[in-house]
């Protein structure tokens, strides 16, 4: 049985336990996709660095009758698709420093190990990777990690963290930060390669990978203990590529086919014009990945944490992002801070529009998805880890109820992740410091 029925048996049973009323009926009743196409769910996590203006984020009123805040105004078209949660946080991030712990711990809900490099450890796995690991093999790529600028170099000696931590939200394991693609053209080419048809080329590649795996196994035996771990990483990534390529010839995988040819979409220029262009193109790439069904899970970082990205392409902005985030309650800076937050939401809305435009049978990709937008801090000036700005768009085929939910102060954000994993069809009992699902979020 495929892992991607609209709702798996297991989810159904679990859901029934925690349910109010009969939540599964609605999911079961999700519009049937057209002949031969099962409704599939997608999940993406968009990360905004440096927090946001705290006074213009939270909507007025709770439940389904909320009024969007100024920053969230660009989401008006998607009002009914939104799940906005207030007062969640990652308890593990209230330590260490102002920024790094809040980034690498954003999707792991853990406390990262403080280090300049020797023992990089997020002490967990990020929520996207929990889902990716459970659904590996269903699509050519288990997940897609994207950003707009290369990992920030250097170590931050002021606070004692390597900047690796400020540039990664996706963690495949405690010491496995996942590298991000930052050039839209490379993403496009990667999607194209991943979906290329079965042929002689595949055997040619897998024979080659077999040979180097032989080398690696031999070499591993000669290394010291800690170096063996490095070789294990190599073995793992080469093996998984080999398995992926081989799988294209297996009968099970034959069931997968691209829902849309990658090369029917426009190919990005070799270099994006600027930051805004790059961001847009990355939104296009997420939409393309989902449309083609090359992957169902993506993470995207608008920028690396502490970025001083110049936003003067927006009217009225006169400094760098990080500088503005330390507004010290200066009215002018606060105005600019709000505008930058709103710009991020506009890009998010652009992605949502694209996903809504992609029809799948009676439904569309947005309806079947959960696209989270958030930051690891609220007010950047205070590096405030409480009441994080978090919004999810898309109803996961009816699994999410939608609305604005306000919880007790310092409710674990991991509870939202547990709810989302459930809605995605990869339920877990617990995730990091979770204490249950977020009440009301699931339909």
């Amino acid at each position: 049985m495929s892992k991607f029925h609209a709702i798996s048996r297991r989810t159904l049973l679990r859901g029934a336990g925690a349910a109010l009323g009969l939540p599964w009926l609605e999911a079961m009743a999700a519009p049937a996709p057209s002949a031969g196409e099962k409704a599939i769910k997608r999940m993406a996590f968009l990360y905004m660095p440096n927090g946001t203006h705290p006074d213009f984020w939270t909507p007025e009123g709770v439940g389904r009758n909320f009024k969007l805040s100024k920053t969230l105004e660009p989401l008006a078209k998607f009002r009914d698709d939104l799940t906005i949660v207030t007062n969640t946080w990652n308890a593990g991030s209230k330590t260490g420093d102002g920024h790094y712990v809040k980034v690498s711990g954003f999707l792991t809900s853990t406390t990262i190990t403080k280090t300049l490099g020797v023992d990089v450890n997020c002490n967990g796995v990020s929520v996207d990777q929990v889902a990716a690991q459970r659904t590996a093999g269903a699509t050519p790529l288990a997940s897609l990690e994207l950003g707009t600028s290369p990992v920030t170099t250097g170590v931050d000696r002021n606070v004692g963290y390597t900047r690796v931590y400020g540039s990664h939200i996706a963690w495949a394991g405690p010491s496995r930060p996942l590298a991000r693609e930052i050039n839209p053209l490379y993403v496009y080419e990667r999607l194209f390669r991943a979906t290329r048809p079965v042929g002689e080329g595949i055997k040619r590649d897998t024979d080659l990978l077999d040979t180097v795996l032989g080398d690696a196994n031999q070499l591993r035996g000669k290394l010291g203990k800690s170096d063996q771990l490095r070789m294990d990483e190599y073995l793992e990534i080469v093996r998984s590529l080999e398995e992926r390529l081989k799988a294209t010839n297996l009968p099970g995988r034959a069931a997968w086919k691209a829902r849309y040819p990658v090369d029917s979409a426009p190919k990005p220029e070799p270099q994006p014009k600027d930051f805004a262009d790059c961001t847009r193109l990355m939104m296009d790439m997420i939409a393309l990945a989902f449309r083609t069904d090359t992957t169902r899970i993506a993470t995207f970082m608008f920028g690396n944490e502490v970025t001083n990205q110049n936003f003067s392409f927006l009217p009225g902005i006169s400094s760098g992002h990080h500088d503005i985030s330390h507004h010290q309650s200066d009215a002018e800076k606060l105005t600019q801070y709000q505008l930058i937050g709103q710009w991020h939401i506009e890009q998010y809305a652009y992605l949502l529009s694209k996903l809504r435009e992609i029809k799948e049978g009676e439904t569309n990709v947005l309806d079947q998805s959960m696209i989270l937008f958030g930051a690891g801090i609220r007010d950047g000036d205070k590096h405030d880890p409480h009441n994080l700005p978090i919004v999810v768009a898309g109803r996961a085929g009816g699994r999410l109820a939608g609305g604005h939910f306000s919880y007790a102060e310092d409710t674990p954000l991991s509870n939202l992740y547990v709810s989302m994993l459930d809605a995605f069809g990869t339920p877990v009992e617990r995730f990091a410091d979770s204490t249950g699902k977020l009440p009301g979020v699931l339909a």
Partner: protein
Amino acid sequence: MHKALLISALIAHAAHAAPEFAPIGSFLSRYCLACHTGAKPAAGYDVRKLTEASLNDQPNLWRRAFNRVSEHEMPPRNAAMPSLEARESFTAYVDHALRTKACADGISPARALSRRLNRSEYAASVRDLLNIHINAGAALPADGAGGEGFDNAAETLFLSPVHAEKYLEAARIALDYAMADPKSREVFLTATPSDKVTPADAARKILTDFLPRAFRRPIEKDEPTRYIALFNAALSRGESFDEAISYALQAVLISPNFLFRVEQPNTTGKQRQVPPFELVSRLSYFLWGSAPDAQLLRYAKEDRFADPNILAEEAIRLLRAERSREFAENFVEQWLATRELGRDIKPDAKMFPDYYESEVESGIRYEPILFVHEILSDNHSLLNLIDSDWTVMATRLQKYYNLPKTEGLRQQPRRVLLPPGSHRGGLLGMAGILAVSSVPTRTSPVLRGKWILESFLGTPPPPPAPNVPPLAKEDAARPTTVRERLTLHRQNPNCASCHAKIDPWGFALENYDSVGRWRDTDAGKPIDASGELPDGTKFNGPVELKKVLMDRRDVVIRNLTAKMLGYALGRSLTLEDHCAVDGIVAQVKKEYYSSYALIRGIVLSTPFRFQAPEPDSKPADIKPKEPSAK
């Protein structure tokens, strides 16, 4: 009661100790002991174990205290806070004591450490192997940095699934280029099939020649076999000789023997010299960012590096070669943070259109790289970094700096003498440095001060206090200049003590705008470039600033040495490595700050030349082996 007793015991202990430990003991009892004691000390950390004796035998325990206190994480914010002076005298004492202890024991090296090639090392190695002129690593993800702040640190060279795809693809593309270029082909296609040479023999010859270059060591006899098998399989599928050999070579470029710089564990039970082939890789990846050349490999084979003079001579040969530009670029851009220009740091294009003229922008970016490269490769004094009467630039940058033309200078940057009063000279007169420590639209004395403390002096300031209360509304008569705003900020006592150490450095550079051009006014007011450090040192403007830095030249050179040793080793420095740094600095001073002395000092240092034994290995049994019975 229990607690009170302990405190008095600790104080009593301190009283009997050597005089200088007493303030340390009282610091601990005053700020730490309330929580970190008893049956269940906070975080399981018992401060009672911090004694003068444990400074000697439990340095890691002290290291932890040192880190937490120096990074202002302890004491916690709701507890009694030591003054900045008390904090710093505590950390200075502990740091000094730990280092003295580590150095007294003699410098011991680290264990063998393997790591993958980083993105630029990969590109350079492929380039040199195949003699191609494309960047084969362009599509690889960038690498993060660890240790001393460089992206060649073994500890942060992770592998993600995307790497496997990229390596496969990058090798294919590089070989396609190489196979199509006669100048490349003659470098690595060392045989061609003919009437007398079968395709299989030609392939064997090519691979037998290629593998030792690619793996940077001699190969075992059967090592080419697997690759020949790939060649044969391709040939029997009907592929041409070129296609088949290219296929086999592609596998070589994805093999971990190529992608990793392998160091085999030292199982001899005692410290040993780094084996010759591993040593030449250390040397060439340090100074060329690429694989060892034929001469290095030959010397390794002849085992000539037992003689340290040969090692030193080879280091200087590498340094003088064109390829050391790669080293200068990677080292300088990360040491000075100028890699962020055009990435995270982008001056505002509307305000500063001149900056974005392509020759200006690249001239600015390359000035520090070429300058440091010139110092290193031509054995100039390292003190030129602080101040110099020359720089490296082309005409367009010269014009940007508003300097008179130099006869014969064109579009190629080269060493140019600076006229008196040029406002340039040394790293601090460079637009790249001045821009990378500014915000997009204006200067920031704080960021410039921080840059000097962190990158130049190696004494980074502590992190800013969290939750700084905003300026009171009645103060809201908006200050116009940056200095006025900072003066206001410093009225807050939470901020003042640190900013008093940071800002003056930056103020001295206020005559440079945020893209490094000279100016005499800011917001219509004359520039005030004066600053005074907490110790009373006063200066006004960049010339006097450089004099103050010249007085602190040994701090500057020590920081440079530590950074460069960290880069050369590709890992975080340990306390013992810092002892090696002290030794190198002493030698560099003796040789009048010669850059060659620095390079020689690094490659001849214990951490660079030696490997510690694996912890579980014992000295080899010295009993000779019994001859085996036939």
